């Protein structure tokens, strides 16, 4: 039988939605028994949230003062120390999981399967390669311990309704002190989170300046949407790095994605493939974004944005 250990992503107080998506992926493995590990200095609040997720049978609190910040070098040996009974160790394919999971895999001397978009069985998975230009089906031998990151855009979050037991795990691992957290500069925003928002409005280089980029914010606020950006817009300094959508930024799956002044490089399209409806607004009728858009509008974005703002609401 498959036993899946999921490493929870959280900020010390709240469980990140990516964890519930890992649960859905793990649940696709027939007969999987799912455990969530919460590594924190005080794991109680997050563990209680994890215990409510459907299909989860156990939540392990891995508490240590050193876990106050999610440092891969510190967390990896603790997860490796408790991983032996599990056939699978999953984490989300967010920067948290991408940083951490390969370190765990190496400590367990096993391979990692990155960006799992489907678990076809306990040993067979599908994942994108070449910026999503090919989907590869991979297989491991039965009995191999599988470490994987889960492509969160491919899965719905597991809903609440579970009542898993919460236990404290006793971990014996030597934790390094060679890596120290200094700071994180997160832009404070009241807007929905880009990775979980139902609606996203993204801007590209055509916005022309950081000042103009703000036009998107007022439209986004009108719609209750999150704001994203193309790599070109981030490189040009119009938007912060955490807004980047694409192969090397965030992979998202909103109900509605509105791309404004984005030409649609393949690396950007990779990040929005799972959006339900894509709207493209661009002055260049030949822009590749129109090939994937459900609705396309050719025109001047500086006229169209204020028009839309008048016409649309939440």
């Amino acid at each position, binding site marked *: 039988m498959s036993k899946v250990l999921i490493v929870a992503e959280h900020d010390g107080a709240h469980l990140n939605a990516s964890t519930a998506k890992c649960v859905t992926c793990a649940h696709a493995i027939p007969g999987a028994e799912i455990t969530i590990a919460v590594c924190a200095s005080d794991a109680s609040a997050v563990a209680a949230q994890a215990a409510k997720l459907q299909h989860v049978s156990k939540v392990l609190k891995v508490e240590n003062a050193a876990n106050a910040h999610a440092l891969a070098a510190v967390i990896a040996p603790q997860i490796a120390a408790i991983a032996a009974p599990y056939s699978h160790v999953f984490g989300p394919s967010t920067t948290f999981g991408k940083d*951490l999971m390969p370190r765990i895999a190496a400590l367990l001397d096993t391979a990692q399967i990155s960006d799992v978009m489907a678990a076809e069985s306990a040993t*067979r998975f599908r994942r994108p390669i070449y910026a999503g230009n090919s989907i590869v089906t991979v297989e491991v031998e039965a009995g191999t311990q599988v470490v994987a990151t889960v492509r969160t855009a491919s899965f719905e979050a597991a809903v609440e309704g579970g009542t898993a037991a919460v236990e404290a795990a006793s971990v014996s691992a030597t934790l390094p002190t060679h890596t120290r957290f*200094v700071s994180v500069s997160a832009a404070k925003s009241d807007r929905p989170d880009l990775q979980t928002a139902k609606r996203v409005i993204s801007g590209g280089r055509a916005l022309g300046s950081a000042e103009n980029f703000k036009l998107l914010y007022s439209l986004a606020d009108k719609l209750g949407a999150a704001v994203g950006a193309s*790599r070109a817009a981030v490189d040009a300094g119009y938007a912060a790095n955490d807004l980047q959508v694409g192969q090397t930024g965030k992979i998202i799956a909103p109900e509605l994605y509105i791309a404004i002044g984005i030409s649609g490089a393949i690396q950007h399209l990779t990040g929005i*493939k799972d959006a339900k409806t894509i709207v493209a*607004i661009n002055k260049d009728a030949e822009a590749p974004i129109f*090939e994937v858009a459900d609705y396309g509008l050719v025109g001047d974005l500086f006229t169209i944005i204020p028009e839309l703002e008048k*016409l649309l609401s939440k």
Partner: protein
Amino acid sequence: MKRILVGIKRVVDYNVRIRVKPDGSGVVTDGVKMSINPFDEIALEEAIRIKEKGGAEAKEMEIVVVTIGPPDTQQQLRTALAMGADRALLVESATPIEALDAAKVFLKIIEKEQPFLVILGKQAIDDDNNQTGQMLAALWNRPQATFASKVELNGDKASVTREVDAGLETLEVDLPAVVTTDLRLNEPRYVKLPDIMKAKKKPLETLALTALGVAPRQRVKAVKFEPPPQRQKGVMVKSAQELAEALKKKGLVA
């Protein structure tokens, strides 16, 4: 001598349109342009800048570029030498090896070269794995600072700013450490013709994988490659008004 080790991978060029073979056995790589993985170019550029900033100490600093691949990968190593690496190592492997084995190879090289810093690209744009740097740091039992957008060295420590989902995170790590690069760390320089000539005289050593005592295993087998599902082509609307009506009709907005 103070040494920076940089890993590079030969990949299908960034601009090549990827096609899946009709029989689903792989993607077409015959006859397509091959280049240094873009993230690895950024890794090399960062090493060169660290050396250039080193002043008098810089003369004593050496950049060693390492790759694992078929004999043809010498081309990419020559490009790396032309960019500014001092010495190149090719670990020959006719077939691709998994990230865990690549990390084991790098560890063997590290044991020999004793670098104070190892810089790798965060991911290769072919398999998009994003694993090797983290695996290497684990096996080496040293710090990792992944997805770096800024690296500052300060004696036996480094301060590294990382691009994370929440924004920018700064870590302090003891050296030696593994850094993996994100896109905005730097903009790699173009190679100039005289540098290409000079690079021909720089040392390029070839090693057999087996000579390093690493026996690669295939743990993950690719059984089928498919093109991604295509989205249906949508409709073009003529005005913001028409767009707004269409989205309202679908219930996507009010």
